[in-house]
């Protein structure tokens, strides 16, 4: 079965505008429909594994029209987005009952999914900007969804920095158009390949790195994330940390740098510097947090650093003309970590939502001894924490191991040391969280806490199972060759991407 590519954008978009029509009385019908849409998207994303094709909107062939491109990298991101959004939507079914205006929430959620799917499928640089804005504006509104003091403050901060990032991206798009005369990614890449870089294009590349770096919350562009992610409702925190920063930030940056501009040694070092800064600062700042969700948010900054580090290491090795096998190993590690982080960080945010709903607090010091009261939340949280800290044989172990092996083979021993060191910090911060939330004395006011059942439990269990079995992506040959290797190949091919797209015309 081949799914037409626009369906990934049109289906959630249509759902977004239908859901508010149900009103207050049809709330359960609207929730059911939203769940069906997200599950449908998972099925369709799984069916695209191993495929690569393009779709020309309105049958206008490129470079005149806009095209959608499905290749290995897009497919990987589609999988991550659809799985996390399905789990988050399942979790919201019960969790969002505590808020009013659930149908508006569902509408914004669907718009966010639309934007992310659009970003990963778009083959046109301005179209990418439009989808980026759809996803961003929906996420600004969702961060402020509670309309309380902290939420509005976080939403405003996020929106100001997000809008500045979008303007950087739009300015860069304008510069690229002015210098190459086309907006289609494949043709831009071909023009740059024949004419080479000039000052305007180099400046555009800098603006892209700053703009997408802000969206991906790499240090020093991270200031908004620790406020915005904890303030959102838990399923939205899971979406933001799990996939939004990767689809809008890491994916877009990878596509632009590797496939359009092509990489150089200087760019490789810039990416590695940003990545190492994010890993170290994120982990150290997370250690000192006493708000559970804030700790998770800082840890996201650190984990995105791993993803970008894998990609940057690959870029540096390719640009220096080193061993391509090592470069592809580094990129494989980065991309696998992207998938892994999407799964376990969204699970941890769902856990925090479950705990917050049961106890009414997020402060670690006010909790304790919840292990007996909330056994399922505890079990899933333990799996996710062990996974993110890199305990074998859970998912996080494999991606970190691959990055370390690649760094050692490329003889960047200090990078391997940083990866291991940050991993130890991660282990410490999750041991701390676990100790304060689930172990120790149960406070008097939490004596009658109850475990959350139903859809919330189902969503958490599904993600926990994924955490355990994700290692199979590396170990089982057919999965590896169909899911990970096409994505690595797209990144490794670099500017050859344009020849592939133009040939498919």
């Amino acid at each position, binding site marked *: 079965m081949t799914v037409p590519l626009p369906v990934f954008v049109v289906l959630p978009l249509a759902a977004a505008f239908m859901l508010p029509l149900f009103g207050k009385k049809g709330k359960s019908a609207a929730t059911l429909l939203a769940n069906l849409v997200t599950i449908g998207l998972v099925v369709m994303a799984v069916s695209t594994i191993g495929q690569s094709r393009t779709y020309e909107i309105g049958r206008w062939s490129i470079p005149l029209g806009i095209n959608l491109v499905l290749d290995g990298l897009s497919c990987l991101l589609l999988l991550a987005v659809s799985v996390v959004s399905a789990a988050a939507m399942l979790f919201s079914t019960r969790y969002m009952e505590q808020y009013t205006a659930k149908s508006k929430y569902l509408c914004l959620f669907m718009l966010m999914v639309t934007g992310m799917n659009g970003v990963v499928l778009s083959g046109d640089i301005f179209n990418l900007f439009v989808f980026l*804005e759809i996803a961003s504006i929906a996420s600004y509104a969702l961060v402020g969804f509670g309309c309380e003091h902290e939420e509005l403050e976080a939403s405003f901060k996020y929106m100001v920095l997000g809008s*500045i990032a979008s*303007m950087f991206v739009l300015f860069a798009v304008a510069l690229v*158009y002015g210098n190459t005369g086309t907006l289609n990614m494949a043709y831009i890449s071909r023009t740059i390949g024949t004419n080479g870089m000039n000052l305007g294009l180099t400046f555009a590349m800098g603006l892209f790195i700053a703009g997408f770096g802000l969206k991906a919350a790499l240090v020093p562009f991270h200031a908004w994330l620790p406020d915005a992610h904890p303030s959102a409702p838990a399923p939205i925190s899971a979406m933001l940390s799990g996939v939004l920063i990767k689809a809008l930030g890491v994916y877009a940056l990878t596509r632009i740098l590797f496939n359009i501009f092509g990489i150089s040694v200087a760019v490789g070092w810039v990416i590695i510097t940003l990545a190492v800064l994010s890993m170290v600062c994120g982990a150290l700042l997370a250690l000192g947090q006493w708000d559970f969700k804030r700790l998770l948010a800082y840890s996201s900054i650190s984990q995105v650093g791993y993803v970008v580090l894998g990609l940057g290491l690959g870029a540096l090795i390719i640009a220096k003309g080193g061993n391509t096998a090592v470069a592809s190993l580094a990129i494989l590690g980065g991309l696998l970590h992207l998938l892994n982080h999407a799964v376990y960080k969204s699970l941890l945010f769902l856990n925090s939502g479950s705990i917050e709903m049961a106890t009414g607090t997020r402060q670690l010091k006010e909790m304790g001894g919840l292990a007996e009261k909330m056994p399922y939340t505890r079990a899933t949280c333990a799996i996710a924490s062990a996974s993110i800290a890199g305990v074998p044989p859970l998912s996080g172990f494999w991606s970190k191991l691959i990055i370390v092996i690649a760094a050692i083979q490329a003889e960047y021993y200090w990078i391997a040391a940083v990866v291991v060191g940050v991993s130890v910090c991660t282990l410490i911060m999750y041991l701390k969280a676990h100790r304060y939330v689930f172990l120790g004395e149960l406070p008097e006011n939490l004596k009658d806490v109850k475990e959350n059942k139903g859809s919330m439990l189902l969503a958490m269990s599904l993600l926990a199972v994924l955490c355990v079995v994700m290692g199979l992506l590396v170990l089982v040959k057919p999965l590896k060759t169909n899911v990970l290797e096409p994505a690595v190949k797209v990144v490794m091919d670099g500017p050859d991407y344009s020849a592939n797209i133009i040939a498919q015309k």
Partner: protein
Amino acid sequence: MPYALCFLLFVIGLYCAVVKKNMVKIVVGILVMEYAVNLFLIMLGYRSEGVAPIVDKSYLTEGGGIADAFLSHAVDPLPQALVLTAIVISLGSLALMISICIRTYEKYGTFDITEIRRLKG
């Protein structure tokens, strides 16, 4: 030269958005940035003594081709389409930004971001 002025406008907007303390002024700063980018896009398509990019009969040559006079003078229509899209998007985000400013004013009673500081760490 016009490009340099356009970039200056962008930098002024960025400065205003980053340095100012009043929420409404920050929003205005972001808008100035947006206008600077829109202006830049429009200037990309500008040609002195340009004509509208619509081929009418007077531009057709006898063989049915398009006259050189048209090709050398027609304005690039694409940036204008881009600017229209960008304006619509910025309208959406402006509406959201202003409504969050109003809600924040209702809660805190001030627009000064140095006094709106409940989130730390």
